[in-house]
């Protein structure tokens, strides 16, 4: 998104972070939202003793935006992985920002809107009772996000077994069992960092058929 920001805005709301500086940590209260102008920010979640990178954000992205309406506990940690220039605003000065840059505010509403859909889609998977169907629907959900979906039969996803377990809401052992079953059937190929679905339409048919039975 190309956006020329006026100098006054930068002066008033601009903040800088050094490489590897922590911006906020998971579970602390916060009421600021950030918009990246330059640099990259890593978003990580702590699970037990391990940390998981959820995303890497760059210029044009928002983060910490859930805090914009209400003070909330941060749902993840944000760490600068390059020198970062960002705009920082709270709900108090958000109105000011809106008047000056309504396009930014509009972009934010688009992001929320997309996220609602993603979360609802995720909930749909969690509410499926059949474990095998859950895993199948995870792959279907991932393929729906790919713009080439509908034209390709074989799809490649850069995900791990843990990712699939997390999306499906199944324990890792159950997930492994189901995926190995698909591997034996020749439907999936797995590598350390990615999985290849041989025929996504197969999976799509499986899910639709089962959904029809449930209605």
């Amino acid at each position: 998104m190309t956006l020329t920001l006026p100098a006054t805005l930068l002066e008033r709301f601009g903040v800088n972070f050094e490489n590897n500086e922590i911006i906020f940590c998971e579970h602390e209260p916060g009421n600021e939202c950030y918009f990246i102008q330059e640099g990259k920010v890593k978003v990580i979640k702590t699970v037990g003793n391990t940390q998981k990178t959820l995303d890497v954000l760059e210029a044009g992205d928002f983060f910490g935006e859930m805090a914009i309406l209400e003070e909330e506990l941060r749902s993840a940690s944000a760490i600068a992985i390059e020198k970062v220039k960002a705009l920082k605003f709270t709900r108090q000065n958000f109105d000011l920002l809106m008047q000056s840059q309504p396009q930014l505010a509009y972009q934010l509403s688009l992001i929320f809107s997309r996220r609602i859909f993603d979360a609802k889609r995720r909930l749909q998977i969690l509410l499926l009772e059949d474990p095998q169907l859950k895993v199948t629907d995870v792959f279907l959900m991932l393929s729906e996000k790919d713009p080439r979906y509908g034209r390709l039969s074989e799809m490649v996803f850069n995900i791990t077994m843990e990712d699939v377990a997390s999306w499906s809401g199944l324990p890792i052992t159950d997930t492994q069992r189901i995926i190995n079953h698909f591997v034996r059937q020749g439907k999936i190929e797995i590598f350390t960092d990615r999985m290849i679905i041989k025929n996504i339409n197969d999976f799509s048919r499986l899910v639709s058929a089962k959904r029809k039975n449930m209605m």
Partner: protein
Amino acid sequence: MPNIRKYNKGSIIYFQGDIGGEVYVLQKGDVILISTEPYKNEEIKERVNVGEFFGMGATLGRYPHAETAQAASESSVVVFKAAEFEQYAIKNTHLIMKMIRLFSKKLRNVHRQVRSILNAGEEKNAALELLNVAEAFYRNHQLEHAIYAFNRYLEYNPEGVNRQRAQELRQQAKEGRTFPSSYPPPEPESSLANLKTSAGAAGEVQGSNAAADNLSAEQRKKSLALREIYEAGKNAQNSSDQQTALRLLTQCANSAYAIGREENKIVQDAYYRKGIIELKMGKLTNAATTFSEYIKQFPDGLELKRSLLQLGVITELRGDIKQAKSFYSRVATMLPHDEITKESRKRLESLT
């Protein structure tokens, strides 16, 4: 320039599943939004008021419409293409603010629903979680980040049970020392600790209780059998073997034998755990039945409040907002005022 379109009674403006591309405002007439989902048994209908926008979410996010929009009587509707809508919104920033407020609320709600299933039964405490984040940074040799997080823990938890621990670890991190591997785990924080022990007490079974309850040899044997199944069920649950845990805990819950006090606690706890596993597996109907049965059998039970809360959660997941609110209000007024009360109040607020 936006168009004005007229629809006859019964006409469909868009179907659930159609890709969004236009935003609509009801100028005159009546429009209803109808949504159905495979796992919900009813249709949910919502009226659009004159002057209200609809079809926004899908068009902005470029995803399929989550509901069907139908004209309930002859209606006229202003139609914006996505780009036109953007122009309009930018000139009317109060609209953007309204959208952000609405979307933010919806997003929070659906995240909460996702967490209800993923984290079912795990009442987490924010202070402890924050401490854990600090210690995780420390363990991963990210000292600066650890110090930042320890500072935050101390700032927001001046009376925290683990205050001293946080200070000690922070000091060690500042000195550049590696995380002390022999450190014991942190203490549970606040009233949550009391909650857990009351539920966990059912698990602290000792052979001597059988004697204290004056049971016969036959009854003692049954009691032991029940406890063994219960412990095995708990272990299976802890190692994520859901199928086995479900089977064993169901056996416990259905056990006709619950004469002694300790045995009674076991059966109660088994019921609650069974419901939680079913919820985690997405088996909403089964989970609802389990929690309802529990409440019927144990109207003064230890898990009454939590079971009612979970029934509220399940009802909310099914889309019956009115019923969900009624469960949450009921829980919110039950004494004592604890974490469960807080949780139910939060959920009630988010539904209004």
